[in-house]
């Protein structure tokens, strides 16, 4: 399902979080919202989810204005940075929650719920943890459970707020490759927020760079790396901060891109 935001403005007191942001998220794509902290990316994600309301502007889900639709009715999946798993429920009950809370008419039978939850737990490869409590899981496992929980209600879009932000570097790398493969399987329209350049470039189909509540550039990883639209983009993406260039280049190639300009420029200089 496609998502569009039109002329979104949002202020917190004097602070401008979103300054007239208009974006188009085509169906089935995985888009990264990338920018430094305080650039408005999380606010934008929460506005799309309906957890936050914009001062002005519209959110269109599948071309339909959803600005006045309650979060509950938007049917979005949301994954929180700190997982937000229900700590008093075991993994199975956490994933089953969305299904069990449906109104009686649309609620599946308990056997159906059981089958579905186990399918999802298999999808995130954690079926063997069904009886554990969140406190007994590692951070990476928690985030995968949180993802399974969000997918249980078959959301039309998947929104991830710094999903790997609270994890250590190694787990983070594993999980983002895993997320990419999962998205290739499911093809649900997804937006994820990150401040990690490498993560955004590696995982997403398209990158939206934001700064001070404004969109600086939209494009594929290749486009933003090769032809940065503004000084901010070229500075923020500065590849020298992220290890040897050949590593980045290799990663981008893995995603089907060639990193021509960046490497040639550097070797010339």
């Amino acid at each position: 399902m496609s998502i569009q935001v039109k002329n979104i403005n949002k202020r917190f007191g004097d602070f401008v979080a979103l300054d007239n942001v208009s974006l188009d998220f085509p169906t089935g794509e995985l888009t990264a919202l990338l920018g430094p902290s305080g650039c408005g990316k999380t606010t934008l994600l929460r506005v799309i989810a309906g957890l936050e309301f914009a001062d002005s502007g519209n959110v269109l889900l599948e071309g339909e204005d959803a600005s006045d639709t309650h979060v509950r009715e938007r049917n979005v999946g949301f994954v929180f940075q700190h997982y937000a798993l229900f700590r008093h429920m075991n993994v199975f009950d956490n994933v089953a929650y969305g299904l069990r809370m449906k109104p009686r008419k649309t609620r599946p039978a308990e056997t159906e719920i059981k089958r579905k939850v186990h399918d999802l737990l298999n999808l995130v490869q954690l079926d063997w943890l069904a009886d554990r409590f969140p406190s007994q899981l590692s951070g990476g496992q928690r985030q995968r459970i949180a993802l399974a929980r969000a997918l249980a209600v078959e959301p039309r879009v998947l929104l991830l707020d710094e999903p790997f932000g609270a994890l250590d570097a190694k787990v983070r790398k594993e999980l983002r490759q895993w997320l990419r493969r999962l998205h290739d399987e499911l093809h649900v329209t997804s937006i994820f927020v990150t401040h990690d350049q490498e993560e955004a470039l590696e995982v997403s189909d398209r990158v939206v760079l934001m700064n001070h509540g404004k969109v600086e550039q939209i494009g594929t990883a290749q486009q933003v790396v090769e032809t940065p639209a503004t000084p901010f983009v070229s500075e923020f993406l500065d590849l020298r901060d992220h290890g040897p260039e050949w590593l980045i280049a290799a990663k981008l190639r893995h995603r089907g891109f060639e990193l021509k300009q960046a490497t040639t420029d550097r070797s010339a200089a």
Partner: protein
Amino acid sequence: MSGATATLAGHGGSVSSRYEDSSATREPTWVKWTLVTISLSFFSFFLLLPLFAVFTEALRKGWDVYWAALVEPDALSAIKLTLIAAAIAVPLNLVFGVAAAWSISKFQFPGKQFLITLIDLPFSVSPVVAGLIYVLIFGRQGWIGGWLMDHDIKILFAIPGIVLATTFVTFPFIARELIPLMEAQGKEEEEASIVLGATGLQTFWHVTLPNIKWGLIYGVILCNARAMGEFGAVSVVSGHIRGETNTMPLHVEILYNEYQFAAAFAVASLLALLALLTLAVKTFVEWQAGKSNNQSDKEE
């Protein structure tokens, strides 16, 4: 008085062992034992000794006198009234407390700071003043006293007055217990629940309530103990009518003033037993809360 105790209790053991393990924070042995001796002797002198005295005095004239003092009609009526007052005041404060804690920790609204101050008012004002407030409002010369008289509604010197005074005095316990707990837990789990399609009520029932369960029970226990033991405010509004508007603490005072020491201590021993029971339940709850706290700590 309340907030921190429930949450800290669970960590007591681990924190102190951390201090003792580290040579940087370890105190010399004599400091440790002096402090332990001071607190223990203070504790025995001011708490254990009186408690012991209550039971010895109550049983001085034997079990028969003790039992007779408890089943005497006026005593029974006092016990009954105390139970009624607690049975109304505690559920009321449960609802008010949860509502107040909820609104303070989950919403931004003008006058929030004022509401927090207001919740503490019963702690900061003398119970006698609290009682007098109700006399001022409902008394014969009070604001609506005349109207009440005309309609033959009795509030002062009757059960409603006692319930009102008890509710007022015990209001802060549950709210005070829940506010820091709910503020610490934040609203992410509730957001997750709503995004998953749950209604507000479902979210409260399945997510919020289980998370505040132990704090809530802890607050209810304290609230109940205070409701049954309240003297000052109730004394002002009760009118001390024997067999009608006397609660247990008031009954104890009357017996004592009439030099019926054994009977007075017998009824007092019931209140002391209630206190001991409260302590036992409280310890259990703190232990449980400590366990679930440790769990959520690991989650961070």
